[in-house]
Every structure is written in C-alpha cells, then in structure tokens.
C-alpha cells in the first residue's frame, strides 16, 4: 500500500514540475523570466517530466542501478521521502502561484540603477546599432519607396517613429547616445517616445518632479537582471505605483555631469500603459 502511495506521490511531484514548466512556456509567462535562448528548454523539460510522471504512475518505478547496488528509495515511503516531496512540491507551487512576473521596487533599489553605458558592457545597441551600419541595397532592389519616406537626416531612415513623428527609443539607446558625440548631436532636442517602468528618483531630484524610467537588461534570467535607467523630468510630480509601466513623450537633453553626459528626457506627457510584449532588454 505504501509503495502505491509513494508511487502516486512521486508521480504527482514530477507532474507538478512538468505542468508548471509547460504552463509557463505555453502561456507565454516564461518571457517574463528567461532570455529567449533558454525558453524552449523549459517546454522540452516540462514535456519530458510529464512523460516521466505518466510512466512512473502507470508502470511503477523501473528497476535501476542494478538491484544490489541501488541507493534509491523507490517505493519506500520514509519520513525523509515525505519531507523531500514536501520541499519539491510546496515552494514550487507557492512561487508559481504568487510570483508577479516582474520585480518590484525593493529589488531594483537593492541592485542599484545603471545610468551609464560603461557600467553595462556586452549590451547590444538596438536601433542605434542599425543607424551606425547602413545596409547597402541589393542589386536590382527598388529603393524608390524607401527614399520617399526618408527624412533629410541619414540616420532617421532606420529609426522607428510613432504616428506623431516622435522617435521610439529604449532607455539603453539613450545611454549609448550619451556616450557618443555624434549621437548626442542627432538626438539632442528631438521629440521621442519611450516606454519603461516608473521608479521614484531618490537622489538628484530637487523639484520632486523627476523619476527614473527603468528597463531590465537580462543576460540569462530575471535573477541576473540589471535595471537600466533614464531620468525623466516630468511636468508635475507623478504619483504612480513603483515599477508600473508608463509611456513618456518629451524632448531629449544631455547634461554634462562630472566627466560624462547624462541623458534626461524633459517630458511633455507621462501616461500609464500596458507592459510591452517583451519586458526585458537583451
């Protein structure tokens, strides 16, 4: 009887793990946790664990390690086994249920914000990288329509713009721009639209209207996320929830602070918005 109970409990533990992994993948939740490279492994592991759970439930514990040398507990329902199953099941269940799929302000404050691109080696330029390299047209390619849309500035051809003609940027783009004289010239005074997460500015905020616009930069998973921030000078003091998503439109300025330039967006509007499909920067 205990062997059957143990078999069912073990199978249930494997099934829970498999279900959580497959659920996170197929519901898209995994995008809030892992770099795209690692996401598919979650689905594969989840499916394998569900298969393993089914086999154990239907056929019992297969013989392993050769009987004489085996150290596994198999069907024995010991106190240690029950405790192990508890540890395997309860924390996973609680965390999967409670996890808000994003960090709150506490962790971002603990990690400290990055407002200087030199603190973020390995970061890839997003749109600015495309600006820096102009793809030559393919032989025979019709460039007429492209030219018709191209504003006078060469770089603008590769910048995404919203319906109002404002350049759509990421926080990391502005950090790169601050470090490059030619990009500072290109962006300085331009109208932009930028989306990120709201965090109150606890320093360099004499008027009380400034806040940090955060995006998390991720290498592998959320546990290694680094908050990349741009200072926003809002028209009025905002009372928003920490790490809530906001869309900011305004003008880019670069202020000389110490031995470097810092990007500051003088905002025209700050409006709450939905989280983008991809919450992280990679």
């Amino acid at each position, binding site marked *: 009887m205990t062997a059957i109970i143990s078999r069912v409990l073990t199978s249930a533990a494997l099934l829970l*793990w498999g279900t959580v992994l497959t659920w996170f993948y197929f519901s898209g939740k995994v995008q809030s946790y892992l770099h795209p490279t690692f996401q598919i492994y*979650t689905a594969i592991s989840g499916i394998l664990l569900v298969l393993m759970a089914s086999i154990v439930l239907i056929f019992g514990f297969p013989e*392993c*390690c050769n009987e004489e040398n085996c*150290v596994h507990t198999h069907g024995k329902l010991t106190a240690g086994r029950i405790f192990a199953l508890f540890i395997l099941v309860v924390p996973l269940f609680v965390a999967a249920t409670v996890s808000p799929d994003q960090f709150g302000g506490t962790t971002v*404050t*603990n990690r400290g914000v990055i407002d200087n691109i030199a603190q973020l080696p*390995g970061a890839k330029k997003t749109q600015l990288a495309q600006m820096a390299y102009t793809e030559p047209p393919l032989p025979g390619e019709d460039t007429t329509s492209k030219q018709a849309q191209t504003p006078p500035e060469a770089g603008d051809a590769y910048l995404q713009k919203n319906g109002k003609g404002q350049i759509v940027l990421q926080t990391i783009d502005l950090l790169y721009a601050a470090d490059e004289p030619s990009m500072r010239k290109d962006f300085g005074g331009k109208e932009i639209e930028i989306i990120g997460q709201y965090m109150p500015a606890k*320093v360099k905020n004499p008027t009380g209207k400034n806040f940090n616009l955060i995006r998390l930069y991720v*290498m592998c998973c959320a546990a290694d996320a680094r908050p990349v921030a741009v200072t926003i000078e809002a028209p009025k003091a905002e009372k928003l929830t920490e790490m809530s998503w906001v869309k900011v439109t305004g003008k880019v300025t670069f202020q000389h602070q110490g031995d470097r330039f810092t990007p500051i967006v003088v905002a025209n509007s700050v409006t709450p918005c939905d989280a983008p499909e991809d919450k992280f920067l990679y």
Partner: protein
Amino acid sequence: MIAAAWFNFNFNDFCYAFMSILLEGIPFMLLGTILSGLIDQFLPARFMAKILPKNPVAAIFLSGALGMIFPMCECGIVPVIRRLISKGLPVSCAMAYMLAVPIVNPIVAVSTYMAFRGQGAMEMMTLRLIVGYIVAVLAAFVINRIPIRHVLRPELLAQIQKKPTNNSEIAVDALGMPKSPTLGKGSMITRLGGALGVAVNDFLDVCFYFVIGASVAAVFNTGVNQDFLAPLANNPPLATVSLMGLAAILSLCSTSDAFIAATLINFPAVAKLAFLTFGPMMDLKLIFIYSAAFKKRFVLGLAIGLFVVIAIICMRLSFLQL
C-alpha cells in the same frame, strides 16, 4: 544621501527570482539526470578508468580538461559525477572534472570573451580558464589524499564499496576506484526503463537540494543592497574577497556570470577574476547540490579551501595590472 538598509526583503520579488532560477536551471539538471541514467545502463563499468591514463597524476590533469570536450553546467554536473563515480571514475578525477567543467569549457570561454570586450577580453578569458583549471586540479590532488569515506555520502560510498557478487575484483583500489561492474542487463527496453528509473530518482534527489539552494540564493539575490559592496572596490584584497562573497550569494550560471562581472567597473580585474572562478565552483545553490553526493562536512571544507586558494591566487596575480 539616502541611507538604505543592507537587507530589504520582499516576498513577491523572492518568488519571482526563485522561479527564474528554477526555470533556467531545471532543464540542465534534467539533462544531467537523463545522462546519469544512460551512463548507468549503457556505460560499461570501469570504462572511465580505461580511457583515463593509468598514472593518477596524468589522469587528474586530463580530467580537469575534459570540459573542453564534454561541457556541462554546474547545475547538471552532480548527477553525472555521482554516476561516473559509481561507474569507476576515481573520486579525485571526478572532482577535477566537476570543479573545472563549469569554467573550462568552450561556451564559457566565448561568453567571457564577449562580456569583457574592451576590458582585456583575451587576458580575462585566458586567465579564467587557467586559474579555474589550476584550482580544480589542485583540489583534486588534495582530495586524492583524503580517504573517500570522508568525502562521499554513505550511500554512494556503500554503492562503490559493495563487494561484487560475480567473481570480479576487490571493490575499491587506492584511488577510490570501484571494480564492481554495474552495467544494466537485459533487453534494450529493459535498460531504457532502468535508465528512466535512475533519471527519475536522481532528479528527485538532486532537485531537492537545488530547490533549497535556489531559495537561499533568491533571498540574497533580491534582498541584499549591492551598494554596500561598492566601498570595498578600492581595496584589492577586500574587493577580491567581497566579489567572491557576491558570487556565492548571486549563484549565477557560469555562462552568464561574466556579463555581471564585466559591469563591476569599479572593482579591480583580479577581483572579477576571483568572482568568475569561485562562483561556478561554489555558491549557495551548489553547496546544497553538492550535498547530494558528498558529505556536508567535506562540502564545507571544500568551500573554505576553494575560497582561500582562489583568493590567494587572484591576489598574487594583481601584479599583472590587468
């Protein structure tokens, strides 16, 4: 200046970090346990002993470099190591492979190089591989002189010391090398079933420690205010020791830790090297995972030993002025 507490805990953030560590690590752990099952059923006993040089010194040196051919991450290596030990790999060689493989492998070499572009990438990558290899091999030589009863968990020790029933040799030789064949018998289906049995049981065994390790890592990963480490950056010995502590707390994957280390621009390069060498060999998560195969006292001793040796080596390297 706002004075912040060194520790601020938020349960939701903890759950989020805990889940992300699990989601990233479990696939690799599952891969390790499946490999463990296949090794158990399909790798002939003493196969590893046969392919390694007979000379124990040469065997340890070679084991430390096996990661360049058989790369594994630190999360998945323990079930594989446990199985290889039971299949005849000497404990010292297993230790050299286990400690070196998260660092001495091509994936980590490339990620380190990419992360440190513009900051002496080639030097950092080369030093990381060399120091990682040297430390792993040194640890293996020390472990080679320790009786394996002080190293392995009793059940694993019993498994490799069990007297064989089929007229083979005495169970363990001077290197802790078992001589009992444990190869699976029967049809392919039976052996695949056996491999599955091993994989399921190994997964549950190691996952138990991984869950505990991931929760401890998530508490520190989200709760510790990292600004408190910054003032240590100007003192090389303190910087080295504090970054090693940070590596243990953050419990990062060795394929990504270089990208974090590269952002610590205020810290000297030797401190980053210590971070990159110590973290993949020993962190909060690994302390628990190692306990699936090794005695707790041994794991604690190993942690202290690695900490001291890596700190000394990295501090001695400060003359390189990287």
